[in-house]
């Protein structure tokens, strides 16, 4: 009941063909559908219509983050909670957005447009449902992650945003980074029994720090770095490990400047998982455990 997991991220790109080429050839996502100004992409193991939407726009940026809910009635109950909080909610009807049914949309206190959706068109994975091989079909290009994993956004007031995501939407706090005064400067939130589906760090309201795709293991992370380097993609950080989430990671930028991540590892928090706290003097190890420090670029650059 409630929110299940991240469904899709919609981003703006000033060059739709270049972005599509990168996401299909280098990341190895599959193009599901295309309109005049939009391209819909999914990972090979995803059965829902899309997990990434690219829209042509003169400037890069985040259009919305969309989470999948388990039941139809979750939309109504979460809608009334958000409205009671004083935030206007817009309903989109079936057919209004490509590949999905009814949804609700609202702006969050951290300034991102958020969508909750239950019914998504099933286009199927790449494997048969009878006697499937345990790996994707041969010949996939690029990194070919099986699925999208999480999104990290920026907010001026992380604490306020966190209360909205936890108290209203039911996200659970797995880890937090506190400054010397005890204020939250970063939070990691989950619904899917993973270390995070959504994270919020201090920065501009409405900003996107990165979105991440899941890889099966550290060896796949290493191979991803090979593919990125071969294609001349700018690697931001890694391969390395996070203190927060315990994940193994590489950060890099798509050709228009949106930060991507491939991620694996972590742990399985129960709903009663006791929150882990990181103190600001350990921020380096919290984010990059091997380096023990953060680069200026990682701290400042977002879209």
């Amino acid at each position: 009941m409630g929110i299940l997991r991240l469904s899709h991220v919609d981003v703006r790109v000033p060059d739709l063909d270049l972005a599509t080429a990168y996401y299909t050839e280098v990341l190895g996502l599959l193009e599901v559908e295309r309109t005049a100004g939009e391209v819909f992409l999914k990972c090979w193991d995803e059965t829902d219509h899309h997990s990434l939407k690219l829209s042509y726009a003169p400037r890069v940026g985040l259009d919305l983050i969309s989470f999948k809910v388990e039941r139809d009635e979750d939309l109504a109950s979460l809608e009334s909670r958000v409205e009671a909080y004083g935030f206007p909610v817009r309903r989109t009807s079936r057919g209004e957005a490509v590949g999905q049914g009814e949804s609700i949309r609202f702006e969050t206190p951290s300034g991102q447009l958020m969508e909750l959706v239950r019914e998504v068109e099933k286009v199927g994975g790449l494997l048969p449902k009878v006697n499937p091989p345990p790996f994707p079909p041969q010949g996939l290009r690029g990194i070919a992650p099986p699925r999208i994993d999480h999104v990290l956004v920026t907010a001026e007031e992380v604490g306020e945003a966190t209360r909205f995501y936890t108290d209203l939407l039911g996200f659970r706090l797995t880890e937090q980074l506190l400054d010397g005064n005890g204020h939250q400067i970063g939070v990691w939130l989950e619904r899917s029994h993973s270390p995070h589906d959504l994270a919020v760090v201090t920065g501009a309201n409405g900003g996107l720090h990165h979105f991440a795709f899941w890889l099966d293991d550290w060896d796949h992370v290493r191979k991803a770095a090979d593919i990125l380097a071969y294609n001349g993609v700018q690697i931001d950080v890694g391969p390395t490990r996070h203190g927060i989430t315990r994940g193994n990671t590489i950060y890099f930028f798509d050709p228009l400047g949106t930060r991507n991540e491939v991620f694996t590892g972590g742990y399985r928090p129960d709903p009663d998982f006791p929150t882990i706290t990181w103190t600001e003097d350990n921020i380096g190890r919290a984010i990059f455990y091997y380096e023990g420090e953060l680069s200026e670029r990682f701290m400042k650059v977002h879209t």
Partner: protein
Amino acid sequence: MGVLRLSHVEVRVPDLELATAYYTEVLGLLETGREAERVFLKCWDEHEHHSVMLRYAPTYGLEHMGFKVEDADDLEECERVVEKYGGQVTRHARGELAPGHGEAIRFDTPTGHRCELVHGMEKVGNLLPRTNPPPRPLGLVGIAPPRLDHIFVTAEDVEEGTRFFKLLGFRLTEQILADDGHQLATWLEVSHTPHDIALVTGPNGGLHHFAFWLDDWNDVRSAADTLAYHGVPIEVGPTRHGATRGYTVYFFDPAGNRNEMFTGGYWVDPDHEPVTWTEAEMGRAIFYYEGAVNQRFFTVHS
């Protein structure tokens, strides 16, 4: 809401000292409690008091399996479900069944297994601090899996067992169908993984194996090194499953209970369309690389 995941297994062992030595030194679990006839163990990353209970008995096998529920009132709800099905349910107060144990209900499943649902087991913490923790503890011995993962039991009537677990909220992810269409084996989940419990055709009440989670294929290889070094009989693997897509190694504890180390798999939405394996492809369903299942794997259980 409802059942969250596998909480613990209680297995019988005829030599409690030997079994404890194996589960702590070779598997690398931690001892959290001990009585005259029972030893309580947990994996390093688990927060609750125990995930494996060893019970002294003249024979081997499964004493009971326990699943964790999310809220205290899930126990009542599940109690109603089991009673409506015709099962007898007993209620147990916190701490009554074992040291550190939560409030629980127990009943027999139609597959002849003693099953428990538990809430509020004592939290003893994992081995890491809650402030600025390193990503793993150093100096663990043995394989040291972070947590228990799933259980695989045998049942005369897999279809009836599957129906029963679905009543408790489990969802079917994969099945092997015989040529006449009946279920030979089923994989069921509540935790968005390929399986928390699986059923395969065999005697009622039997334990095929229980499995611990490892982080990746390299850890499975390393586990095989540890097992071989200690002279533990490796039954199958390291290899890969068709069903669940997982990577695996199977082996036996000194009492003869089958253990597994498992990793991989996929994320499962509640509206996941189950995968079906046909009887002709059963070999690949179980062991994808070998494409065949040996007689021992089919017939030996505890």
